[in-house]
């Protein structure tokens, strides 16, 4: 197993990537202490490095060993030297020595150490190490019985695996690796630390989680949570958090399993523990909660995790911790209103988040360049996190939204540069659910302007969010509705309905529906014109029920007041009747059919439009059928339709009544007056009265 093919030195391919840039050096003090390499030129450095590589090929094993040790000392903390050695092809030789069972254990260990050291360098180093198939070689090395050698291999593996450039999949290619690593967990604290760290970094997909879980990760790692070594505890915790992420199976086992590490994890959130540990433990519990293993009203979530995460957002924490804390908190409370309410009052979270926008602080700008650099780097992340949290906070509760919009400059911040960030849009969307905010601050800040701009060209993901927000802004009571209409939104929305993404189609048609609600004749005509009947029918045959529903809703809104009905029906009556027939005949859910019948009822309310139905015997038969349907809602809608048709005060009502009586509607109505549903009963009675009058 774990065979490694030794290939010819990869000098050429490696050379092409070098010389490397001076990366961040891991242990700077070592570097500072070391005298500079003699000579300044690159060639000379390579020459001195070559000496180390040459010694690896020495026939005397003792010399080789000494060479490796010297190399180890030369390479520590010296990125340039590392790069040189890699360029000169030291890696394949080291790997060869490492794998040779003939070489002494000491030599093999030293080789692993040197490789580990090389891996500590830049990302390029790691890349070339991985290219040299270092991972299978090191995994092979783990089969050795010597603990020191194993630890050296693991250390190197750890360094390689935690780098973002390493393909994680390499750990899972050989199915025997994971069980072997599990069995090594008991060897020493170092193996525990390295292995859990590898797991924590290499568990990226649900498949990985399952693989680890199936190999008993929980039983094996749970005892490490109470290890005397802080590093081990920390890595075990991180490991659990990645395992539990969106994984119900793992989470349930963590909470209910026989090892039950869950109380230990809760204890790790105690306030006297290091911040890193508190944060990771809270994250772990958050994932467990979101995966459904812990109820959101459990005291460990409400009274421990949530306050802990809020604490992580406070000013005293480091910027990174604040970002992570805020993001985790946003994730935790996303689905639960109660948690959002609690969080909104805990430790002034809302105003605390406003501080996130104050970086980089102007005070330190000039004096402390390093700080500025750091702040700049995190400023963006901080903002993102804050918006994420705001979005999460405000998604359900009106009071919280109010609180957020009342935070100083909040709306300005969101609106300015809206196009830069999808999270801002999300936040805005969250806030747009509030009737009050729509009528006040959204209007005050002319949110629609940047939003419209955003809708012109934005990636789909943002577009979904933005159009959804626009839907809310187009609600009848929104004061922004008028200006938006004037800015030619209809065209835009119509183009959205032609989008490939169902979400966008829904949003587009939804927005149109909202717009059409109690709108002017002009607007309605404009909508119908812009959309075009063809598109309308295409939407009516959309595979997505949501789109269908909204389209029907749009039709219903379009066909609302009597003059509008007549007007639209006169121009598009035929198509609409066709579409309605189509839907009523098709296989659709009750809701869809109900909507359709409602449309029919609306049509029946029109003066001239009535005739479209009356002349359509097929349609009348359908209505008759639905009046006798088992579903009360459908019955109600159909009865409504008939009631409209036979309404007394209108011209020609007598003829219609007669016709319908002939078709046997009176009997059905009579039957319906005895229906158990009071609404239906009432409706039928009203209809009967029309006959009597």
């Amino acid at each position: 197993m774990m065979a490694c093919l030794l290939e010819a030195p990869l000098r050429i391919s490696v050379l092409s990537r070098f010389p490397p840039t001076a990366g961040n050096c891991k242990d700077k003090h070592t570097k500072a202490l070391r005298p500079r390499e003699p000579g300044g030129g690159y060639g000379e450095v390579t020459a001195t490095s070559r000496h180390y590589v040459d010694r690896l090929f020495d026939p005397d094993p003792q010399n080789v060993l000494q060479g490796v040790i010297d190399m180890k000392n030369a390479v520590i903390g010296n990125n340039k030297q590392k790069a040189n050695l890699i360029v000169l092809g030291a890696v394949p030789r080291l790997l060869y020595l490492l794998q040779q069972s003939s070489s002494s254990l000491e030599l093999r260990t030293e080789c692993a150490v040197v490789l580990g050291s090389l891996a500590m360098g830049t990302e390029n180093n790691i890349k070339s190490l991985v290219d040299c198939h270092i991972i299978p070689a090191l995994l092979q090395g783990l089969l050795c019985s010597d603990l020191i050698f194993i630890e050296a291999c693991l250390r190197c593996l750890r360094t390689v695996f935690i780098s973002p450039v390493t393909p994680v999949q390499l750990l899972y290619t050989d199915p025997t690796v994971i069980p072997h690593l599990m069995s090594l967990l008991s060897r020493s604290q170092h193996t525990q630390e390295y292995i859990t760290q590898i797991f924590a970094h290499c568990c990226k997909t649900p498949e990985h989680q399952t693989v680890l879980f199936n190999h008993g990760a929980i039983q094996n790692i749970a005892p490490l949570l109470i290890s005397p070594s802080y590093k081990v505890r920390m890595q075990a915790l991180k490991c659990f958090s990645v395992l539990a992420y969106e994984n119900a199976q793992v989470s349930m086992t963590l909470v209910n399993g026989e090892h039950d590490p869950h109380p230990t994890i809760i204890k790790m959130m105690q306030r006297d523990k290091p911040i890193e540990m508190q944060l990771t433990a809270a994250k772990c519990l958050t994932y467990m909660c979101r995966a459904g293993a812990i109820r959101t009203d459990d005291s460990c979530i409400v009274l421990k995790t949530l306050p802990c995460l809020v604490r992580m957002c406070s000013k005293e924490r480091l910027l990174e911790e604040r970002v992570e804390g805020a993001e985790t908190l946003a994730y935790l409370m996303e689905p639960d209103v109660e948690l959002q309410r609690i969080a909104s009052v805990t430790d002034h979270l809302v105003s605390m988040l406003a501080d996130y926008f104050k970086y980089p602080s102007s005070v330190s700008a000039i004096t402390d360049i390093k700080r500025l650099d750091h702040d700049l780097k995190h400023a963006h992340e901080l903002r993102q996190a804050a918006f994420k949290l705001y979005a999460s906070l405000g998604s359900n509760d009106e009071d919280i939204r109010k609180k957020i919009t009342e935070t100083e400059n909040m709306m300005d911040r969101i609106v300015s540069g809206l196009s830069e960030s999808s999270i801002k849009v999300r936040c805005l969307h969250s806030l747009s659910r509030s009737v009050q905010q729509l009528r006040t601050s959204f209007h005050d800040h002319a949110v629609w302007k940047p939003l419209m701009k955003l809708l012109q060209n934005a990636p789909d993901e943002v577009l979904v969010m933005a159009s959804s927000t626009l839907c809310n802004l187009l609600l009848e009571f929104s004061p922004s509705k008028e200006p938006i209409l004037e800015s030619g939104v209809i065209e835009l929305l119509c183009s959205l309905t032609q989008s490939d993404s169902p979400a966008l189609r829904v949003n587009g048609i939804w927005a149109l529906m909202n717009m059409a609600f109690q709108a002017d004749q002009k607007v309605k005509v404009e909508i119908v014109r812009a959309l075009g009947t063809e598109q309308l029918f295409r939407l009516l045959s959309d595979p997505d029920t949501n789109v269908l529903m909204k389209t029907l809703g749009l039709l219903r809104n379009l066909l609302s007041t009597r003059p509008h009905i007549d007007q639209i029906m006169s121009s598009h009556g035929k198509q609409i009747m066709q579409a309605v027939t189509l839907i009523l005949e098709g296989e659709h859910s009750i809701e869809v059919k109900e909507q359709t019948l409602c449309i029919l009822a609306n049509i029946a309310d029109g003066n001239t439009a009535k005739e479209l139905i009356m002349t359509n015997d097929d349609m009348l038969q359908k209505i008759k059928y639905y009046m006798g349907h088992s579903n009360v809602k459908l019955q109600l809608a159909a009865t409504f339709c008939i009631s409209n048709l036979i309404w007394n005060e209108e011209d020609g009502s007598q003829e219609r009544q007669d016709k319908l009586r002939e078709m046997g509607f009176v009997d059905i109505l009579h039957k319906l007056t005895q229906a158990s549903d009071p609404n239906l009963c009432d409706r039928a009675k009203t209809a009967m009265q029309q006959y009597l009058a």
Partner: protein
Amino acid sequence: MGQFPEDVVGGFTAEELECKICYCAYSLSSRRPKVLECCHCLCAKCLAKILDLGESSPNAVVCPFCRYITELPGEDVDSLPDDYNLVSALLSIQTRKHQNLNANQGEILLSPRCLNSLVGHSASASPTSIRSNYVVITIMEPRQEPVIPAAGRNFRSSSQDSMASVTQRWTVWNCAALLCQTSARVLVWLLGLLYFSSLPLGVYLLIMQHTTMGVLMVSLVPVSLLIVMVYGLCQCLCREFWDSISTMDNKPSEKEDMLLRLANSIREAVCGLIAVSWLASRPIRIKQPRNLSGCSPAVSDSGRLSHWTLLKSCPAKDSWQAVGIDGRNRIAMSGPSSGCGFLMSVVVHGDLALNEQEKELNQRLRRLYPAVNEQETPLPRSWSPKDKFSYIGLSQNNLRVHYKGHGKTPKDAASVRATHPIPAACGVYYFEVKIISKGRDGYMGIGLSAQGVNMNRLPGWDKHSYGYHGDDGHSFCSSGTGQPYGPTFTTGDVIGCCVNLINNTCFYTKNGHSLGIAFTDLPPNLYPTVGLQTPGEVVDANFGQHPFVFDIEDYMREWRTKIQAQIDRFPIGEREGEWQAMIQKMVASYLVHHSYCATAEAFAKSTDQAVHEELASIKNRQSESLQAAQIGSSDSYLGPILEIQKLVLSGRMGEAIETTQQLYPSLLERNPDLLFMLKVRQFIEMVNGTDSEVRCLGGRSPKSQDSYPGSPRLFNSPVHKASSSQTYQTGFDSNYCNGVSSSKGHTSAHSHKSCPPTMPSPELGVLNGSRGQQTNVGAEVEMEVDHFSNGVSESSSNGFLNGSSTHGIDLEECDADMEVDSAQSKRQLCGGSQAAIERMIQFGRELQSMSEHLRRERGKNSANKKMLKDAFSLLAYSDPWNSPVGYQLDSIQREPVCSTLNSAILETHNLPKQPPLALAVGQAAQCLSLMARTGSGSCAFASVDDYLH
């Protein structure tokens, strides 16, 4: 606090308040509780049904529980007596329906303090019987012969039976209980005598024209009766008053109830009165209810008399009936009234819930605020009944606050402060307030205020007052306008207030969630305060009586870590080297002070550069002889001290005293108290069997004991074998210095001194194993002993040592004894030897006389007295090691003696009495208490003990 579970009313659980046949709650109408002669209780309805069934004669009821037949006194079940206890409980329930406050105030009529102690005593006599919440104390007149009941009155004979069985079981009581009884009886007699003799005495005084005293005496009896009457009346009036206030819109049946209650209260008052006079005139016996009920009763040491239930006198029979409740069973007893005896039972609710709460409170406060010295700065435990505005009413041990003003304008606001300010030594202080009712408008303020701030305001409106208000959720920081702070709060919410005395901030919590900092720069000495403003507002405080909703301990942990990190990272700066040197110096001087010679040497060696400094500094301040000692040779100065200490620590006090007297002749003469202490210790060691005198008597040859070289002179004496001397020295350095023992077993003397007294058997085993060698030593040392003891007799003022050396017990005998000891492997008094015990007793007498002598000469000394008393107490136990005073026998107790002696000796050499290290520790501790006094909260988390291991 005081949230009596709804179902517990006047000591009844809901279970007891329902009929056991139909499981319906008793009522005052159709389901009136009726008691049968077998003492079982049923509701009238069920009784009627049973009667209808007619299993027996028409005028008798068969008890469904025990089949006892009760004759009906009248025609129907109504004629049966009511269960008075239950009726009164039902009444009180009705009362309570309208009156939420002062739950059981009305029921407490009398709580005779004198019985308090009795309950406590009888409880300790049989602590196993503690189970439920009630104590039944039956007070009854002793009967020489049981009254034979009239024939045909079956029901009475049954109760007599139970009484007879009771009397028989009295014999089981132990003498302690009897003692209590007697003392109680005497006490009551005395009180009664005083009370009743006041009238003739008053008359006599009047005649003698001592008018004032006479009038006082004469009026004592009527006045006290009057007081009791007035009290009863007041009580019921108060209650009515309350009712009318709290339930202005209640049902019309009120009047009837009121009358009933009034009558009830008056009756209770009269009953109480009679009870008092009866108590005063009758001898009483107190008895535990186990015997009465046959089920385990409850007695609690903290249970106190809080509720008397005197049962109504049955008018028909003219007898008293009394009922005791023990949680599940009830026992009724009745007795004929015609002078021959009273039966009475007093129901004592051991107000266990309350005491538990108090205990919990104490525990929690101690755990939360370990640094607070409650003698100096007491913690707030309740609201202050004095420091409040008149619109505030307090109840439930001053923990519940309710508003009783008009509440029309903000001028009607009222607040109350806690009894004490928050001590700075808390570090972090926390209390919670639960909103029981938000009243009309919920204008409640929770916060802090300084002493003297106007109480006619909500907290936060005035200077030095801070509050968080429930109506708008604003925080008020010494101003009339609030800042938006948190959510509003209302009925059911728990609001906590946490004062951080380290950075002088305050934050609130709502239902366990921190709301963030509310105030900064708080002044010191603030009182927890609540303010209410509209009628109906009721809040309960929790100063630690219950677990807090917010996890305050977690918050404290965070601060503890912070403070400790601050201490750990205290910047030392440039002078790092100096610090190290100073610390090393201190440690070295500490070691030298306590004569941990070898350790000091090792320490000096390991801290390399410190050696010279150390020695130099010692040279500067110590006498010549000390220097030599410091370097490690045991022959000049420290040697003797070490040796004495070694003797003391190994429990061989007799020798230690001798040696001291020999080396520092004037020391003990000048310090008689010290000598006394040493001797008391010697006595204890004798009991322990470790002192040399007793030891040789008990288990060892006296020669081998005394052979231990007591002075350097002996050491160098040519008689001594080289081997022995060498053992001594090595053992000396290694064993003793660390105060740890390790048995070498070279000589008996050696193993003896190094073995702790708690494990004599292995030591003896060793001795037995090396018997040959020991004999050898014994023989060898014989010469020395003469020499030595002669020397002692010259210099010593104690006569007993000579005596000890004359005890001629040969080695064979010793060995035999030892074998027995090791076989038994059990600790015995003085090592188990009769002679040793005698010697010990003799020594005790000497000690006693010495103590008397001391007292005559130097006046009383309570410390000495206590010491002696404690030491003698050891003899009172068959196994002193496991007795309450057994701690004295622990070898650890030798250490204070040792260090006192050490200090005294060092003092004679003009050396500091305490090592600098101890001084530094003391100073640090003092600093902390100073910090607490000046209001620096960090002291809470910086205990000196944390740094001493």
